[in-house]
């Protein structure tokens, strides 16, 4: 594909992510931290986030499947997830985590399960989108272009 078109596509795509509030300012901050000393900073952080989140989501699923749910543990996991998502700027994930925590406080099982679904959904969304975005970036880089800021 044409390099310029690719770059254009990337730019539009990123704009749409911001527009839909999938990502927020924090992500921009991360991108700023990437320089020649740290060329893969963003990818590293995002990969770390994916690993972490998947682990946490599994833990959460397990914890909520128990007969007697340990809400404190659940809350701790959600807190972690919230922290991670806010660190990379996954706004939607973070917001769902906030809602999740409220339900945990109320010890509302139904609510927690619903929120878990929601968080999963948001996470998949952001994962897909970010992966697509990285794919585009790779394509541009391999075509010899530079990623437009």
């Amino acid at each position, binding site marked *: 594909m044409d390099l310029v078109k690719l770059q254009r596509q990337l730019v539009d795509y990123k704009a749409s992510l911001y527009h839909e509030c999938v990502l927020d300012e*924090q992500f921009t901050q991360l*991108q*700023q931290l990437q320089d020649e000393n*740290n060329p893969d900073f963003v990818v590293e952080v995002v990969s*770390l986030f994916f690993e972490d989140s998947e682990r946490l989501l599994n833990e959460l699923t397990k914890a909520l499947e128990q007969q007697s749910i340990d809400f404190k543990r659940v809350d701790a996991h959600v807190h972690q997830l919230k922290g*991670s998502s806010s*660190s990379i700027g996954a706004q939607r994930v973070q917001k769902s985590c906030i809602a999740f925590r409220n339900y945990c406080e109320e010890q509302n099982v139904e609510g927690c399960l619903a929120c878990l679904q*929601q968080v999963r959904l948001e996470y998949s969304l952001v994962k897909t989108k970010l992966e697509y975005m990285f794919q585009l970036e790779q394509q541009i880089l391999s075509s010899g272009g530079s990623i437009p800021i």
Partner: protein
Amino acid sequence: MDSCNCIEPQWPPDDLLMKYQYISDFFIALAYFSIPLELIYFVKKSAVFPYRWVLVQFGAFIVLCGATHLINLWTSTMHSRTVAMVMTTAKVFTAAVSCITALLLVHIIPDLLSVKTREMFLKNKAAELDREMGLIRTQEETGRHVRMLTHEIRSTLDRHTILKTTLVELGRTLALEECALWMPTRAGLELQLSYTLRQQNPVGYTVPIHLPVINQVFSSSHAVKISPNCPVASIHPSGKYTPGEVVAVRVPLLHLSDFQINDWPELSTKRYALMVLMLPLDSARQWRVHELELVEVVADQVAVALSHAAILEESMRARDLLMEQNVALDMARREAETAIRARNDFLAVMNHEMRTPMHAIIALSSLLQETELTPEQRLMVETILKSSNLLSTLINDVLDLSRLEDGSLQLDLGTFNLYAVFKEVLNLIKPIVSVKKLHVSLNLAPDLPEYAVGDEKRLMQTILNVVGNAVKFSKDGSISITAFVAKAELLRDSQTSEFFPVPGDNHFYLRVQVKDSGIGVSPQDIPKLFTKFAQTQSTATRNSGGTGLGLAICKRFVNLMEGHIWIESEGLGKGCTAIFMVKLGIPERLNEPELAFMPKVPPNHGPTAFPGLKVLVMDENGVSRKVTKGLLVHLGCDVTMVSSSEECLRVVSNEHKVVFMDACVPGMDGYEIAVRIHEKFTKRHERPIIVALTGNTDKVTKENCMRVGMDGVILKPVSLDKMRSVLSDLLEHRVLFEAI
């Protein structure tokens, strides 16, 4: 001796008679000499005697008379010729003086008499003055009484007190037996006994108001003497008491409108009260003029005082009414506010509740689209996606509109690329346009600035809506979109007669015209286009969907942007043109080159702001840790990372200048770590600065951090600029407490 014909025979002088004559002469002479002496003595004594020379004359007269009688002493016996001579001279002189005196007395005696009359006159005058003095004194006393009465009456604004005081004071001043006040009833046909002096609670006597005696009193402004037998004067229940002299006077009941300066009190005041005053029967007193005057004056004063009291009552009533109204209004306002809040809450909740599933549908459908699907399935998924997008837009629209109506919507101003907005709009309508086989052309004027300051999202929404309408209502043909800067001459368009845009230095008016060749709008429907939920009733539109909210929202947005939107159409089937003008700001030239397509990307500063600064980061969350480390490394710090509190305490040394810790770390409380660090480094300059990173935005967290001795609290997530400024502040001041 015998030849005389005397009736009585001559007899020779008798010795006894002679003796008696002799003695009398002597005493006469004595008296005659002493009288002038006495006169002189007493006149000398009194200073006032105007007729001295009269006195001299009198004295001379008396002396000579005395001398004559004295010389008579010698002439009773045989006497010589000298004695006779002396006697004669004396007699002659005496005669002369007596005659002169007699003549003079004719003049003098009237004078003396007039003195007497003058004396009488003066005495009368003095008596008259005495009388007048007495009168003045009584008048002055009356005046004093009136003043005192007035003072008593006017010192209160309470109607009852006024009237009661009047009666009491009048009774005291005039020593009345009874004093009563008859007030007119509401209907005005009767007088009712309202107040009396002696009786505490007068029984409700009433008297018809049109009695001749009452009319007589009412028609005169003076106090009128009335008969003790008339009904107003018989106020004792037993009826056995007949009072003495009775006087009645009218008391005008004034209204506020009656106070005109020159007409007092001969006004058209139709309402009077009647004051009846009775003297005690047994004192045989009569009503004196000054007492009547006193009564009249008091009646007038009472009238004034009553009117003041009435005014006061009115104003108190009005004030009470106002207060009540205030309270009611306040409650209404609070209810309205509660209602608004409830509605807003409802909308917010509904919005969230509606958006969440919507979002799920849209997200999952779009994810589904990415997977392998048969064409049928793909079509289904696309339909689902389209419908849910529409629904989502609808929800947004409704929410936006309600916020717009509230006035709670505010524009998000920012600098954006104007050209990009239009291109985006084109992109978005491209699919529909290609399906409908419409031809869309975009014409951007060359002088249109590339960047503008305004609410990008809502501008796009407006353009999209207008263009979307053009597309919706066109079956075929072409749509042309033109955008240019509105010039001064175009601003005087007849359509925009109520809109006067004023171009200035830092803003311009963007004018966008969207012309389509679709079904058009009939002229009478044009005004309705911008009202909510109204749609033209042709069958074509009914199938196009939409709520009819779009244009209403656009109008609101355009108004918020200080602009104007209108539609021109020549009629049905002749297409229509939608035109709007909005005010956009011109961004500063300086910022332009730094702007990119990406929103809010601040420029990259030099990385090493704090070269070599040794920092310890403690965070259990791997991702956060990595991000914080990335931030600090970017700023040139030498970062050590730990993931637990024990490790933190183990690793921390006096080489580390700053310790960043996540405030809510399970295991060991983040606060406890701070305490431990304080214990470990007793000397202040050895201790690293402790900063908490927290996502918590409440005061409690901040207070706790301060309590345990942290030097600063920062809210996560931290931007690069914030971290930079935080570090510089910390290193300069050694303390930073961000307002959370």
